[in-house]
């Protein structure tokens, strides 16, 4: 069965099969800035991505990252979580207000909850670990550049944990609680299902799965939920 290894790489209606070029709907290759304080890693990623993306800039710390991003206005930024000068969240904080159209895909060696949730709440649309293969990374870049969210099983697990059902009344029922469907979608993603498989399992379309995932992402970023804050505080995210 021709399934891509990385869950959530199937796009809304578009099929990114093996061998197909990773492109936008309008055929353009995404313009990308790579931000990581390990120079070897940056050049490695550049080589791996090859022609799938157009790398328009690189940076190794917060200040130069903000500068390069403002100059180049890329479609997407590959953002390392641990950067000297305040980390990936600092770049998000300084760039997003001025350029809300730029997408960020977080990248890290660590997959500790603090790092993942912190950067997603800061505005990143997805999170991948550095062990990811070149092809999967290219897939993820195109997805995020298109406006979708990339949810790895681990991120899904963290979100489920953060929104664990309790008896405390939510401050804002819309933002502070996951719907039953959203929980089901997240659980399947956490179990390693790709979007297509989630859709088949729940008898919904892939587009619906994407909508649920985007909604979860929005809740994660905006929710002031009591438990979420406490959960975040316990992990020193806020």
């Amino acid at each position: 069965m021709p399934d891509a290894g990385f869950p959530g790489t199937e796009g809304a209606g578009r099929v990114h099969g093996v061998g197909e070029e990773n492109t936008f709907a309008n055929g353009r290759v995404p313009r990308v800035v790579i931000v990581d304080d390990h120079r070897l890693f940056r050049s490695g990623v550049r080589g791996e991505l090859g022609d799938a993306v157009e790398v328009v800039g690189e940076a190794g710390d917060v200040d130069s990252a903000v500068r390069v991003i403002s100059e180049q206005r890329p479609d997407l930024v590959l953002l390392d979580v641990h950067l000297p000068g305040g980390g990936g969240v600092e770049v998000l904080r300084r760039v997003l207000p001025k350029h809300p159209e730029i997408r960020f895909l977080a990248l890290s060696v660590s997959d500790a909850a603090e790092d993942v949730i912190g950067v997603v709440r800061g505005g990143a649309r997805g999170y991948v670990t550095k062990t990811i293969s070149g092809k999967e990374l290219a897939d993820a870049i195109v997805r995020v550049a298109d406006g979708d969210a990339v949810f790895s099983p681990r991120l899904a697990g963290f979100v489920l944990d953060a929104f664990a059902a309790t008896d405390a009344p939510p401050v804002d029922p819309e933002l502070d609680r996951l719907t039953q469907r959203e929980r089901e979608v997240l659980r399947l993603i956490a179990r390693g299902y790709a979007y297509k498989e989630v859709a088949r399992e729940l008898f919904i379309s892939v587009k619906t799965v994407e909508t649920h995932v985007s909604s979860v992402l929005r809740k994660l970023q905006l929710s002031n939920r009591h438990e979420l804050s406490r959960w975040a505080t316990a992990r020193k995210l806020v």
Partner: protein
Amino acid sequence: MTATREETPRLYRRRDDRLLGGVCSGLARHLGIDPVVARLALLALAVGGVGLAVYIALMLVVPVEPETGEGASPTGEESVRRKGRDISQMLAYVALATGLGLLFLLFGGVLDPLLWFLVFGALGGTILWQQANPAERDEWVASTALRGKAWLRTGVGILLVIVGVIGFLAFQQQLHEARAGLTFALTLLAGIALIVAPWIVGLVRERDRERRERIRNQERAELAAHIHDSVLHTLTLIQRRADDPREVQRLARVQERALRSWLYQRRTDTETTVSPALERVAAEVEETHGVPIEVVSVGDCPLDEGLHATLQAAREAMVNAAKYAGADTISVFCEVEPEEVLVFVRDRGAGFDLNAVPADRMGVRGSIIGRMERHGGQARIRTAPGEGTEVQLRMPRSPAAR
């Protein structure tokens, strides 16, 4: 234990660790005893009169320790600290000597056997205390100082001693004369205790602090060395096996996990709750069979018998996936709900036909499904040729563990 013939150090007067002429510390090193013991012994003799002569004689006859050059001279701060201690030490000894001298003068003259008996008894007790190792000392102190019964015992003991002394003196018809002397002696002893106490307290505290510091440094150094060693080891192995990509990946992943948990994660007790125990199982299976296993868990709870069985079943599922599925990775998901724990082991490998597995073979039927059901849980296997496999485990939580 056979006695070994060690070389006894020659008798010298010591340069370091000296109060006056270094006689006692030199004597102590030559005889292999604690300098404090030597000093106390000589002090007792000095009060008797003989000691002073002995000391002066030794001082004249015994040569000073030659400059050896080894044993670096103490740094400025250390020598200042040592001097401070030395002075308080000296004061302590002088006070002790004065006290002993007055005691003898007041109570019976130099040749009174009872007094000598008492003095040597006290000295003997001090020597025992000095020679005991810290563990024994802690035992004694703990058993005498902390519990109510011990206080009672000590109180009664002191009372008896006082009554005994008073009675003894009364019978000797010396109580009237001795009263003044007794008061004076008690005051003297209190004074000596005051002088000696800070020195003793300082020593004890310093010893404790040094011990803690040493333990901490040791632990840290051990851990760092271990980490560096294993990383070095892994890198060497990777170079040697560079032509076997699977082996290289396995080595790299094992080392990566170890380093990552050391750097980024809190240390958890793997034996008492589900989530870290499951991760440990996955790490073991991955190391043995070489297929990467990703573990995602939501929630946590203490282990009970049913959950132990679930972990075993999960291990079986992972091993099967690693051995037979031929997949690139295995996904493990664990969710702890209030009433039950769910574990899913998923791979996108070859899959198999469940009905084709003969009923009498162990493996899936016995190990996984049977094990779960024996403990009150459930197991479901979803698979089809070419579709991958998912093992779904469900175990109710024991009411006590909730």
